[in-house]
């Protein structure tokens, strides 16, 4: 389950941030390791919401810092 989520998340990040796939580890932070700015993060969140058909509140979105945070959040909230 978490693995499948990770693969789908990875694909979106590669598309959006144009980074190498092997840079996307669970520990990688969006800002420092993947070079995302605040607009990139908003775009990513919106795309993840579409891909996984869920809504991520601004409050929860603010807590997201690593790729692992996203995978955990989605795995926990997917219906």
């Amino acid at each position, binding site marked *: 389950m978490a693995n499948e989520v990770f693969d789908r998340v990875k694909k979106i990040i590669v598309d959006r941030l144009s980074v190498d796939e092997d840079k996307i580890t669970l520990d990688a932070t969006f800002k420092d390791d993947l070079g995302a*700015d605040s*607009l990139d993060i908003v775009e990513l969140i919106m795309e993840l919401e579409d891909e996984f058909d869920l809504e991520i509140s601004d409050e929860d979105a603010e807590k997201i810092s690593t790729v692992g945070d996203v995978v955990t959040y989605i795995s926990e909230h997917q219906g």
Partner: protein
Amino acid sequence: MSTGRVSIVTGASRGIGRAIAIELGKDGGNVVVNYQGRSEAAEETAAAIRANGGQALVVQADVSVAADVERLVAAALDAFGQIDVLVNNAGITRDGLLMRMKDEDWDAVHNTNLRGAFLLIREVTRPMMKRRQGSIINITSVVGQIGNAGQVNYSAAKAGLIGLTKSVAKELASRNITVNAVAPGYIETEMTQMLGEEAANAMRAGIPLGRAGTPEDVAAAVAFLTSSKARYITGQVLNVDGGMVM
């Protein structure tokens, strides 16, 4: 130059919006012609665009209603696959002196003139950001810069549009999206016909170039600001007012 470009123009059934839609439809442009109530007038705008070799899609939507705006932008993406230009032109007046102004008149003017622009910008931003390209124009007014007795609602909304323009310009600049405002002065349309002859003459007397403007004068400024020639211009207000404000 505009071949294949896709533009949404709100309030394009008549007046300034119609002239802008026709201008952006030249040279093979695709234009989404939005209107609120007058479908026949909107169809006339579309026919003029097609006669020039452009493509037009007519979409009814009240810009102050979020669901309508979503539908409008979805229809544009469905038909043309992308959005290059957004012109927030739809606007209304409900004039009256402050002391006698009704809440509804304040709200109606803000909802259409300011909230409408916010809703549309929010809706087109994502498709524009994805393509790292876009140009947004908000039609404000000289009244938003210098005020006007009898138009507290309208001038506040138009001044609000200038603030909106500058903030969005800053937010989206890193994605190669430019956001500018155009401030017409006294332009001959239905909106200004309501003024009456005496007020109109007084307006003309205050215009250095000595005449009222035409919708085409405003459309020319929009054409420039949305062209590649203006790609280094963002967050600005361009007055098209015969020198009224300088």
